[in-house]
């Protein structure tokens, strides 16, 4: 990802790095527990206080080098943060979005861009969201048509993006757009660039989507109608945006994995508590192997995916490329997370569907992790092609 992990004082073990981050995370989740998040979701508002607390506790500064006002640390620390939040019932979607938007700026941006756009996000005071998906492109980012045309003063951006999480909350949107039309490039992967766009620009219009993800962040269709973007807001080289983007995306997958793992554990804990007390036939339902084995298997699969997730995170932080491992970790973790929530659903019987039991409400977000920000089929495509050496399948 952005930079190799900052060297923390002394040589810290992986376990210690995870423990430090989780300890600070616990300070936030104990102040802002699951009930707080559910309240935000019910009231349709962003968990602003919790987000600010993450800033105050030095956690939003993770993966941002200390010389840029961050807390240092690398992929491993971000992974631990996300897992720590999710296992307390606070799966913070906006953290993934923030990671996706910040990493390319830290990695490919100028010092001025880092200071203007990334530094103020460390306290939570300013927010960045991320826009790549288009209605007619979807998984195939190369097919995007949003276009930024160069003129004397900078760029003029037109097009539309869909599913943009937290666009209403964001101060800036990191937009991936074409700077050369697909018909004018040799290869479809060329001609795309990254721009930091002022989310409050009057030529941007947003339309909320009717998404049921059981998360407090809302999704928007975002229309760009000849939005003026200053040339100094171009991140990295013109036309090389997606190439620069993709190599940092693999590491960000681990945040998705961590969110699934944490949510899975949170769901299992609920399932175990319920299974130990619910006894329609006189003995607790947790004593039935049909349920017990389902939970035990879910736990084993979560733990296996967790090992792979942190192992991949540590590899990235050592400067190794761990794309294959990270993709497989996200694939396995998202499935394990869903299976754990499924086990919790089965255990709770009919009550699982009572929203007040907060079980069915765990399902949409954990299931989404098998689809967004990248669907598991694409990960299998990657493994097939790049790990196993099979022909490209799509």
């Amino acid at each position, binding site marked *: 990802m952005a930079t190799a992990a900052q060297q923390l004082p002394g040589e810290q073990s992986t376990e210690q790095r995870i*423990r*430090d981050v989780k300890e*600070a995370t616990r*300070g*936030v989740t*104990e102040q802002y527990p699951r009930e707080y998040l559910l309240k935000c979701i019910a009231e349709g508002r962003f968990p602003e206080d919790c987000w600010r607390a993450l800033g105050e506790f*030095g956690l939003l500064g993770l993966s941002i080098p200390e010389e840029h006002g961050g807390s240092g640390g690398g992929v491993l620390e971000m992974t631990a943060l996300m897992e720590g939040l999710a296992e307390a019932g606070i799966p913070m979607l906006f953290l993934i979005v923030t990671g996706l938007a910040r990493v390319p700026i830290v990695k490919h941006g100028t010092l001025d861009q880092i200071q203007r756009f990334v530094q103020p996000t460390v306290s939570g005071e300013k927010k960045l969201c991320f826009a790549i998906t288009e209605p007619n492109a979807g998984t195939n980012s190369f097919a995007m048509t949003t276009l930024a045309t160069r003129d004397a003063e900078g760029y003029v951006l037109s097009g539309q993006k869909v599913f943009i999480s937290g666009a209403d909350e964001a101060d800036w949107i990191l937009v991936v757009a074409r700077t050369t039309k697909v018909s004018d490039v040799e290869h479809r992967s060329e001609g795309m660039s990254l721009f930091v766009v002022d989310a409050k620009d009057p030529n941007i219009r947003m339309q909320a989507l009717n998404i049921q993800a059981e998360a407090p962040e809302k999704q928007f269709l975002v229309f760009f109608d000849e939005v003026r973007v200053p040339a100094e807001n171009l991140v990295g080289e013109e036309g090389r945006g997606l190439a620069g983007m993709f190599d940092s995306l693999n590491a960000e997958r681990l945040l998705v994995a961590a969110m699934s793992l944490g949510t899975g554990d949170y769901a299992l804990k609920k399932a175990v508590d319920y299974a130990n007390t619910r006894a329609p036939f006189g003995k607790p339902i947790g004593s039935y192997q049909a349920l017990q084995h389902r939970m035990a298997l879910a736990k084993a699969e979560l733990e296996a995916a967790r090992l792979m997730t942190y192992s991949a995170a540590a590899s990235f932080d050592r400067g190794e490329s761990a794309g294959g491992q990270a993709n497989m970790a996200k694939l396995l973790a998202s499935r394990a997370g869903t299976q754990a929530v499924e086990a919790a659903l089965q255990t709770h019987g009919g009550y699982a569907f009572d929203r007040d039991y907060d079980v069915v409400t765990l399902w949409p977000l954990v299931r989404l992790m098998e689809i967004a920000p990248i669907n598991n089929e694409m990960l299998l495509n990657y493994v097939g092609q790049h790990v196993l050496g099979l022909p490209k399948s799509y």
Partner: protein
Amino acid sequence: MKVMVSVKRVVDYNVRIQVKGDGSGVNLDGVKMSMNPFDEIAMEQAVQMKDAGTAEEVIAVTIGPAKAEEQLRSALAFGADRAIHVKTDEEIQPLTAARILAKLFEKEQPKVLLTGKQAIDDDANQTGQMTAALLDLPQATFASAIEFDGDKAKVTREVDSGLETIEVDLPAVITTDLRLNEPRYLKLPDIMKAKKKPIDAMSVEDLGIEEAVKLNVTKTAPPPEREPGVMVEDVNELVSKMKDKGLV
């Protein structure tokens, strides 16, 4: 003044304790360990004294295995200036702990030793009292408020009959109760800073302490399961059931 605080590594209060099958103790395999919550309160008290300028130096002490360094690092993240780690892999009984704390007290000469009123693992509630006795110092246990005034401390104690306020001469041993304060949450920068603070490690033998083996745990058993309740139709039935059981 100089303040010494003892902190103990115990099973995290959120963990659902499992008794080992053979009754020889509780299962610690893969169980989350944390600082004893009453010691967190003692740490918070010490750090508040530092923030207020009442304390110049805060020293955290633990007696325990190598891994108890984690709890010392937490104490340093709270704001302790330095720490002492008395390393041992043995189960330490309250009297041994008291002997060690008394020895360290003599060495460091703090104005006050703060300890949690008890540790949530064995709930002995003895170490603070024994330490004071060994040092022949005043003690104020179960503190829910502490006010320092020169060479004295006014301590409000939570006792069975309510609240009792006593005055002790310093130096003294004060043990902390739940309502004394709400311990702060540790922030990442403080956790990182704590890594650079010094920990002085030593063994029980280094201190010339003889271990006290006074207690022998014969068996550990889970609490009896609660019997299922009964449903009653109305208030009259409730009252008559309670009368039957001699509850009213």
